[in-house]
């Protein structure tokens, strides 16, 4: 049910830049406490949507309500309740880590004392207390992103916007970040996350929409989308470049659906092992094979015919 004060309610939302339609009539509803994802490739309209929700980009047409308020009229009020982690860190390089957080708190009208106390608490939360007096520049990418997250929490936001929070981070830094975001979710903060990593969406999102070329092409929970659009498992087989497509006819009747990519075939099946045995029984022997669980990547591939990250 859509509540009047819900974090985000969008109807027929459109963002245009001159003739280019970045966001094309999308309907979105985010409930309180939910972790909601926008999954899609670069240029799908995720960031444009996030900027409209963040009240830093005017809506071209359609309706957008954040906490029941209109961004055009009440942008300041809405932003006061929101934390934003932008795609590229916009930390203040002229200031130290601590000062970055304190001045940000001041933008939200925190008293100096409260801002300092909150900043210390948040640096502890993102495990950067010992870097408090360091400038931002010498920090690693993962550390800078953690400072960005700490800064976005300075006003105890009711809604947290994370635009590709782990893009460009190494695997270890990603996991540290996911862990912190999961802790925030447990505390009840509503989160909106954009990503083009399916594993990230599966890890972090209760519910998500898949975007492509400005439109929403699917909506549901990660597991629900996988169950709805693809089988439980995927058998990936490689026959060598350029020789994958010609194998398809020999595989008729195996699994649910077959996707031919230039470098490999994807065979969607409830039982990948059984599918592979059937391949061998028909004496179709691939150079290599791999059985894995289906992911949102497969959902995206089925819906758009393209892979997310190439």
């Amino acid at each position, binding site marked *: 049910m859509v509540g009047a004060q819900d974090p985000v309610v969008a109807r027929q939302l459109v963002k245009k830049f001159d003739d280019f339609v970045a966001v094309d009539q999308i309907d979105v509803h985010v409930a309180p406490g939910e972790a909601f994802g926008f999954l899609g490739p670069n240029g799908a309209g995720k960031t444009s949507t996030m900027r409209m929700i963040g009240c830093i980009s005017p809506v071209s047409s359609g309706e957008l309500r954040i906490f029941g308020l209109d961004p055009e009229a009440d942008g*300041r009020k809405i932003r006061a309740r929101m934390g934003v982690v*932008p795609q*590229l860190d916009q930390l203040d390089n002229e200031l130290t880590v601590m000062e970055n957080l304190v001045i940000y708190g*001041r*933008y939200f009208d925190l008293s100096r004392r409260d801002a300092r106390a909150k900043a210390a608490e948040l640096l502890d939360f993102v495990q950067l207390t010992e870097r408090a007096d360091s400038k931002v520049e010498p920090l690693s990418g993962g550390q800078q992103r953690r400072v960005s997250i700490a800064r976005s929490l300075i006003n105890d936001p009711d809604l947290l916007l994370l635009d590709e929070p782990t893009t460009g981070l190494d695997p270890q830094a990603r996991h540290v970040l996911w862990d912190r975001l999961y802790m925030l979710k447990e505390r009840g903060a509503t989160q909106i996350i954009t990503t083009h990593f399916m594993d990230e969406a599966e890890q972090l999102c209760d519910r998500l929409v898949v975007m492509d070329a400005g439109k929403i092409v699917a909506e549901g929970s990660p597991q629900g989308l996988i169950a709805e659009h693809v089988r439980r498992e995927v058998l990936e087989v490689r026959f060598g470049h350029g020789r994958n497509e010609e194998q398809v006819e020999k595989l008729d009747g195996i699994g649910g659906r077959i996707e031919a990519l230039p470098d490999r075939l994807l065979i969607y099946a409830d039982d990948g092992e059984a599918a592979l045995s059937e391949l061998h029984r028909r004496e179709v022997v691939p150079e290599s094979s791999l059985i894995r669980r289906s992911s949102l990547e497969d959902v995206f591939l089925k819906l758009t015919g393209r892979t997310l990250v190439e």
Partner: protein
Amino acid sequence: MSVLTNPAAATRIVPAVVFDVRRPQRMIERSAFVYRRSWLVIVTGFFEPLFYLLSIRIGLSALVGDVDAGGVLVPYDQFVAPGLMAASAMNGAVFDSTMNVFFKIKVSKTYDAVLATPMSAGDVAVGEIGFAVIRGALYSTAFMLTMWGLGMVQSPWIVMSVPACILIGFAFASLGMALTTYMRSWEDFEYVPALTLPLFLFSATFYPISQYGNYAWAVRLSPLYHGVELVRAANLGQWDSSIFGHVAVLVGLTAVGIAVASRRIEALLLT
């Protein structure tokens, strides 16, 4: 419900950003964070007036002799010092509001992060202009004290030269920031000295406006001229009704500059 308590109604009547200024002091606070580690920059502010004034005193003053400043004969160094003080206020304000602001818009993206908070484009514009003015006021005070130390002060009214320079700072910082929002690349900054240098030279800075003869009207078009006249009046302690006109010009330019700068920052960053 009155218009003032309903921002939605207000935005439909007047452009929102002109009046959407509530926390500019937070931008000033940010600058204070940045500069509290570089207080030396403030100290060096004394050097500029000292060198300028000494060079005039040593060379030109004796060559030129006394100058007629609105009916009063004053030694040349005392005539020219207020002109240099006003020009210095202009140059400081222009520097702070052009290169520094451009860097924050295009390179460091400082304002993008600020605008994601309850701060508005108007807060950013007024706050940045405000800091440029505060810094300028410190330099102007240094300039005034140096003049006094070198015996170039005619009247105790000289204390009014600092508020006069604050007006100059506001006008040029606002215009500079507005201009900066139209800059596409660093090359465009070549135009800045092309604008400020003629103002510096032809604003009755070095000789009275009477020297311009039939072209005095052109000098009156220079915003700096109005600043120079105010500072000079302060040094001579000679006030007449013309100062209202000079003040009005500087205040008017400030209003235009702030309005343009806020709206342009909004157009550039809130897309």
